[in-house]
């Protein structure tokens, strides 16, 4: 429960409640990386145009460079670090198994965009997955493997339920 008399903004990050004080205009990306040390969320452009900073906010993909802290009271945030559960999230396994990536700078954002998609549309096909990832750029050209990996994770997640 958020106690409004305390300063700062109350959030849940990867299941852990946190309270963040300071400039409410700060983007969530900065809060995650600098205040919480969650550095898998990457700075790519800070302009909302590359997707490297994508996280899941209340179940939907969001660009953390473009989300001011002040608007996030009570929000549930998930980052790529949260995929290191036990057992690891099927998306993580699929990306590793398929060597879906090269430099990997784009990948945490892509993982989170894919997670948000598969949780709302578990039966998303390849075309739909590609569309949902269109806000995420990858310069190494690993797209095709990334799509394979998301499809594989979708199958595994469907099988597990």
């Amino acid at each position: 429960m958020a106690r409004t008399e305390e300063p700062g903004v109350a959030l849940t990050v990867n299941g852990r409640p946190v309270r963040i004080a300071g400039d409410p205009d700060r983007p969530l990306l900065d809060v995650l990386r600098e205040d919480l040390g969650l550095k898998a969320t990457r700075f790519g452009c800070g302009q909302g145009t590359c997707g490297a900073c994508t996280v899941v906010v209340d179940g939907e993909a969001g660009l953390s460079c473009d989300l001011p802290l002040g608007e996030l009271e009570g929000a549930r945030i998930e980052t790529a670090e949260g995929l290191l559960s036990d057992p690891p999230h099927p998306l993580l396994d699929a990306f590793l198994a398929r060597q879906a990536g090269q430099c990997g700078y784009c990948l945490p954002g892509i993982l989170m965009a894919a997670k948000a998609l598969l949780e709302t549309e578990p039966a998303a096909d390849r075309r739909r997955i590609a569309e949902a990832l269109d806000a995420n750029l990858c310069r190494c050209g690993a797209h095709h493997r990334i799509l394979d990996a998301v499809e594989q994770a979708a199958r595994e997640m469907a099988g597990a339920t």
Partner: protein
Amino acid sequence: MPGNPPAPLNDAPLLGDWVAVDAGITFYTGRVELGQGNLTALAQMAADELGVAPEAIALVPARTDRTPNEGYTVGSMSVSQGGQALRWAASALRHLILRAAAQALSPRPELAELDIVEGAVLRDGAATGLTAAGLAGRVDLSAQIADHARLRRPEERRARDLPRIDLKERLTAAPFVHDMERPGMLFGAPVHPPHMDAALMSLDLDALARRSGVVEVVRDGSFVGVLATSPLAAQRAGEWARAQGDWASDTAEVGDPVGAIARSEAPAETVFETGSFNRNDGDWHEVEVSRPYLFHASIGPAAAVALWEGDAVTVWSQAQGVFPLRKAIAMALRKPEDQITVIHRPGAGCYGHNGADDAAFDAVLMARAVPGRPVKVVWSRADEFRAAPMGPAMVTRVRALLGPERRIKAMDIVVNSPPHAHRPSAGGTPNLRAAAYLADPVPPAPSKDIPATRGGGADRNAVPGYDVGNVRVRKRLVYDLPYRTSSLRSLGAFTNVLAIESCIDEIAARIGEDPFAFRLRHLEDPRARAVLERLEEETRAARAADMPEATGWGLGFARYKGSSGYCGVLARVELDDQIRVTDAVAVADIGEVVSPDGARNQIEGGIVQSISWTLKEAVQFDGAAVADNSWLDYPILRFSEVPRLRVDLIDRPEEAPLGAGEISQGPTAAALANAVRQAVGVRVTRLPITRDAVIAALSA
């Protein structure tokens, strides 16, 4: 001795240059991970040669205070050269371990009876109770590698895919130089002038120093840097300063850079000539193609950390060459190299000489103002587009003479291009951006490009791989454009392969011959033929079944640099409200394949990047400065635009391993241009091949 030692051993001939033994066995490489998994392949090569599991060794990437100096990790040579060097070192280590084993065993065995398998010393295949790790401490690391290396036979090696050693942390953790944390760290943002020769006319440095979170403003000549207590404060102050600042430059405007390059009358150098060019009559076919300036456009902007302690500075950098960067910093600061240490840390994907070195120098300049405190610099997206070197625009003209029996009798190629390679410390100057406008400036000497003997720069792959008898290649380096250019993946090969393959395709279409058959009639090299034959066979059914309106298949082929990997690409495009690439199939021969999936990954990545270059990308200028500030100004290929993709490798375990990272750029561009030509009947020769460009070509 197994042939000549690989070049990296010349300056680092001792076992101890490459290996240390303490708690375990550690190998040192002068190469770095550029995001393609090359360190995994190198670890695999060293471990296999030694006879241990890859997890049993550590591999330390380039750092100037310990590893051998292997220059840059470029040109797909990290496996072919760096890997061979590690193999030699591992082989010498194995040999010396086995010598120690022979002394320890009784009855004393012949060396030939011993081997190391999975870390255990075996005698005629049976366990001896001795291990490589246990005996490694007895090896004299001052031994000369070349005296002891006895490389395993190719049949003993196993091509296989190891999981990337570094992929998991790239997905979920903080391995990048951008992620480094150090106590007392400050955060720097550079304020780079828009042109290399620009002078800072006005910027209110006092107001800048009063911005929130700013602790220090550094000015040296026309370079300004802001230091702040947080990355966000640095970023915001840097943006403010860039918007406020005013710079002057004498550089003249260029209306149409590609046109200026095409019309250049700079002297042309003949870089290759065979046969004769006395006659100009006959059935000549000509195609002239161009590409615009291109960005590296890495998803992560350049970053670095620097720390000054007394006279010494340590730099953590994503640069492709830590030793050349050290030299460049020494030149720019007029400081001895031994006071500078450069340690590699990963950055986002690197496709050539981008802003990494410049950002490292920015960090050095800013950290100098706060000795004892580490300073991290992360460029803004606008810096990444506007301050980093670009891949130069190019114009290549190919003329081919069709002779009797519909055979090409001669090819005459002219390449016009600003220079490509302009790397830090090459040519006697630092070639670091800020160095050009310090109070005590060290501006870059003009690049000489790369000579043909080293694979060529602008003229890379300008010599056709076809057997046509008479060939002349001329290169015209164009120096009078104001834009900063250097090496971008595959250098001139992208445009030259596009040009040659466009001309070949044009002639095949003109005489109504199948593009595979026409090429095969001009190829004797059995490896080249095998690649094309395999590609033809694999795609025959699909090509035969398919030919709706405005759809085309196109072929592109080249052997990279004329001496490296062979790659053929077949692409299918559909034109409707946009140009859609639906399929791309590639066949490649990269000699011995160390890690098949890793190699395929690189070739696939090259294809996707090349599709993006060919169909979408062009740097826009505002006078002499880059105009693009964001991804909205410079779109690249997105997920829903990526085709179905398949890459097949022809494994040749008996051949030397060749790089895979750059071989698909040119063939892909050619395949696309030829596919569009087949789909609509006209050729777009000026990249990018956009829908508008196709419409313009149709109505021309």
